[in-house]
């Protein structure tokens, strides 16, 4: 079975610092792959190459086995890659519908943005994802962290993402909202999406992911199936940068 995403020998440097150094990773449909590592290990950078925010210096990306050219966030969207950023890439001054459709507004016959239709679509998808969501007319700055997160997730779900990148999706959330996100990840997985998940919470990753990949200093330490490793193994990979299984 061809992997959904293959990233091969990816490298990128910022002014002499090798942020990602010859890293390869793949992702299959219906699979959740967790990326772990210290701050500055290169996880977010690697993922931003896939989402089009950065341009790699060398390497190759294949989507469904075919070579992909991703030079901008728009390119990434054309490959059905959606990203939920750590910083919640929302425009605070706009309402939920405007954010959900940002960059892909629905327009009417005259080419004007169709706010009413976008609001109706937002109501529909929110009723599915987060039934408590009622503040459709207000700027998203008035929303709680969880509500903002559900806008970001709704954006990915609405546009039929095949590949979903979640950069610390639960970092700003409370217990209840974290559980909601976990449930959603299971749901999306069942629908056959491939998900890259970045987090610092090792335990959470063990629960949510099928495989975990650990990075340190821009290099890939190892990618293992979660049932093959213990939490301690992962911690030692993160801290020491060595794969205990490979050494054994």
């Amino acid at each position: 079975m061809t992997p959904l995403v293959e990233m091969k020998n990816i490298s990128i440097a910022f002014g002499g610092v090798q942020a990602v150094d010859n890293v390869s990773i793949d992702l299959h449909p219906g699979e959740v792959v967790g990326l772990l590592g210290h701050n500055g290990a290169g996880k977010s950078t690697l993922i931003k190459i896939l989402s089009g925010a950065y341009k790699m210096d060398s390497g190759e990306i294949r989507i469904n086995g075919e070579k992909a050219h991703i030079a901008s966030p728009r390119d990434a969207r054309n490959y059905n890659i959606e990203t939920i950023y750590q910083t919640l890439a929302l425009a605070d001054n706009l309402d939920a519908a405007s954010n959900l459709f940002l960059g892909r507004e629905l327009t009417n016959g005259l080419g004007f943005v169709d706010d009413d239709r976008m609001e109706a679509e937002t109501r529909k998808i929110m009723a599915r994802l987060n039934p408590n969501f009622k503040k459709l007319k207000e700027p998203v700055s008035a929303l709680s962290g969880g509500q903002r997160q559900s806008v970001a997730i709704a954006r990915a779900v609405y546009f039929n993402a095949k590949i979903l990148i979640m950069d610390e999706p639960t970092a700003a959330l409370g217990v209840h909202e974290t559980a909601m996100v976990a449930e959603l990840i299971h749901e999306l997985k069942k629908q056959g999406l491939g998900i890259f998940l970045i987090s610092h919470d090792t335990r959470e990753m063990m629960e949510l992911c099928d495989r975990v990949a650990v990075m340190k200093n821009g290099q890939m330490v190892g990618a293992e199936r979660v049932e093959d490793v213990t939490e301690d193994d992962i911690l030692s990979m993160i801290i020491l940068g060595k794969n205990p299984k490979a050494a054994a």
Partner: protein
Amino acid sequence: MSADVTTTPTSPPKRSFLQTLEVDTRLLGMIGAFILVALVFNILTDGRFLTPRNIFNLTIQTVSVAIMATGMVFVIVTRHIDLSVGAVLAACSALMAMTQVRFLPNIGFDIGHWAIPWIAIGAGIILGGLIGAFNGWLVGYQGIPAFIVTLGGFLVWRNVGWYQTSGQTIGPLDQTFMMFGGINGTLGGTVSWIIGILAILFVVFAIFNARRVKTAHGFPVKPMWAEITLAGIATGAIAGFIAILTSYEVPARVVARDPAKYGCEVAEGCQAVYGLPISVLLLIAIAAIMTVIARKTRFGRYIFATGGNPDAAELSGINTRMLTVKIFMLMGVLCAIAAVVASSRLANHSNDLGTLDELRVIAAAVIGGTALSGGIGTIYGAILGALIMQSLQSGMAMVGVDAPLQNIVVGAVLVVAVFIDIQYRKRMGSK
């Protein structure tokens, strides 16, 4: 019900009269401030401030700054600034004046040829657009702060205009061109009323069409009486405005100069009114177009998204660099249009045209509620801001306030207006 029951509606909880109408309370605040300024000056001038004549003059004096202020809203919303608008206005005005007075007559166009004003206006708009696009390219693609680019432009463009004209005052301008200046181009009573009635019909249609669309989507709508109240207020405001402008009569000596122009055979007994100035109609059209751009187009949506969170906009696939070029280009085009109004109002081009306009334009946008931190601002707010500034200035001039004191008051009002705005936003819990 007993007679001492107050007017507070008892129906759904916690919805005041204004909330039910869904009107912007900030807009009401600004209108309130404007009415207060007008009333105070009216008392101080023994009723001379609110005469049809003065209201007419006030509106035509506001047009040039107000046109530029609508563009400045977009610039400030995206967290930039444009300090060069007064200078760009002067450069465009110089080119337009030279085109109609020197260039075209020199290549064989007779003075008064019908094409002269339109070629001149076209040339000015192209120049304004090019200057704006160049500024936008420096800001968006080269990463030079807009403050620096336009501070440079502030010095450059006025003097480019000076070079074109060798420092001379260029005039008299073309007769048709001067129609855009105000008093020389008004629509008279009948046409003004036709436009007023069309505007009323359009507003009423827009209010009820919006309601119909909302109902079709199953959204909650405000009660019918609220829609009718709003439609009634809008109708009253438009009709009142037209009524004031059409009650400003053309003085008999002006009619006597050219009775045919006012539809009379002879000057005796001929009465005519000025009505809606073409320049004000131009401002209203620009305000409507700019509002549609802000609210109903992707371009406008991206402007506000970029102002709210530039990173989010970029990550959503918006080309924020090109957006910057477009915004500054639009600003340049609006400067050129403002230059038409400003120079034709004075009947000639002089080098100091639009001096300090950059500050008036920025002040108008800011008084109108545009936040320098980006993401927030409205077109109607900027126009009201321009109107408030102009009212203060001409009101103080009418009262006879000393010149230095006039500037002190205007400066203080700018700061106080922003202070009130910040306090208001804190209270409302938004940023």
